[in-house]
């Protein structure tokens, strides 16, 4: 339990709570960004700097940007306060606390004690692993990304609402 870990963990946890509780969607997205960035810090502490870089680049740079676009394009919801009714909030709290208790119990009753740190993985070995052993998963993932891209474009494509009133209305 290094101080660095404690700080990062507290940051991550606080940011995640704010992410799910913020009444403004914009703030929630920014808290998510803070959480992802502090997770990247934790990754560095766990000797996974490559993953930390990817996390910054892809998550904070990419996913955050997408979310921001989502918030801006659905402006009405972004502006307004997000209501959370008390009954579902209570229900959610109970369920998640119960799950947490279950998981924590499991973690604390780990039989083989605390395993020691192993040699950190090198970037080159990750690359070899991704493109060697897991090439099929890698290729499938690329197909999935392509499918997601096409699907997203199709879903979000806008029907032309603003057609001119008549064919030659615009002098252009």
């Amino acid at each position, binding site marked *: 339990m290094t101080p660095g870990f404690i700080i990062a963990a507290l940051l991550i946890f606080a940011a995640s709570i704010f992410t799910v509780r913020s009444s403004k969607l*914009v*703030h929630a997205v*920014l808290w998510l*960004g803070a959480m992802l*960035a502090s997770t*990247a810090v934790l990754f560095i502490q766990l000797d996974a*700097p*490559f993953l*930390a*870089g*990817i*996390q*910054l*680049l892809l998550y*904070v*740079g*990419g996913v*955050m*940007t*997408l979310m*921001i*676009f989502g918030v*801006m394009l659905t402006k009405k919801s972004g502006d307004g306060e997000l209501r959370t009714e008390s009954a579902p909030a209570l229900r959610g709290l109970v369920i998640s606390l119960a799950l947490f208790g279950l998981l924590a119990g499991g973690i604390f009753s780990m039989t083989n004690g605390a395993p020691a740190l192993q040699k950190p993985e*090198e*970037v080159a070995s990750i690359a070899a692993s991704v493109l060697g052993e897991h090439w099929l998963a890698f290729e499938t993932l690329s197909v999935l990304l392509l499918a997601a891209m096409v699907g997203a474009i199709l879903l979000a494509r806008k029907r032309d609402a603003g057609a001119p009133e008549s064919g030659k209305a615009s002098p252009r």
Partner: protein
Amino acid sequence: MIFAASLAAAVVIVVLSATALALWYERKLAARMQTRIGPQFVGPIGLFQPVADLLKLVQKEEIVPMGADRVLFALAPPLTVIFALAAAAFVPLWPGVAVVRSDVGVLLVIGFGGLAMVPVWMAGWASFNKYALLGAMRAVAQSISYGVPLVLAAMVPVILAGTMDLDGITQFQATHHWFGLWPIIPGLPAFILFLLAMLAESNRIPFDIPEAESELVAGVTTEYTGMQFGFVYLAEYVHTVVGAAIGSVMFLGGWDGPFAPGLHWLLLKTLCLFTFIYWIRWTLVRLRADQLMTLCWKWLVPAGLGLVFLSAAWNQTGWSR
């Protein structure tokens, strides 16, 4: 640890003072290009003009517009500076020395570059101003688009050198000529691509669309006053200075050069790139938002993909080993 901390402090001070100098230098340069004289009254040949500017900005009243998101509004400008400075930590100053040496330095630098978009967007959103909002939209779209060619261009030296460590890349260049020179086919186009993408990421003309002052008044900075504006302004220059430094590290051999110690060469190369960027700035007009996207997705991204393939092929031949 203490060495790293003092080095970090030194780098922050050096980058900030270099930025102040760069401000003066840019104003002089622009003035020369425009048949003007430029700053000349504050200090010898106007050298202390940035200090005067700073003093002026500090004593100005800071106005928060009604309806603005106060927290985000106040948070955004310092964050822009911090993110812009963070990338400077990875620049290898002389052989084997950087504030932070990381095996994946390239990735982290680009990651921090991409992060700089977040406070810009925060500023635009929090300002409660339509011009700022449009500017923020443009900034986000531009950043996410130009991140792709930036990564692709950065991949070329990474593939050729076989490492993502910035210092390792420079060392490789020192022994194999620079990537701007050899191998010239993926190297030089990749450098140009990197420069273009970097200009777009740091919102320089001809890509300064988020703050296009003839269209969006001042884009995301419209509502900022006093030192808050100063921070955004500063971050812009820090971003450019650091970007030029990274560019010279990754493509122009960084600290490598004869006769003089490494830092001199790094600074000289950074200055050359910086001059080039501002030469472009004071010469060209800006593109339109849709033309920017067309340029990115139809030309730069395919070119970047091609360059990555080429450099991989070059690596396979083993000529550069």
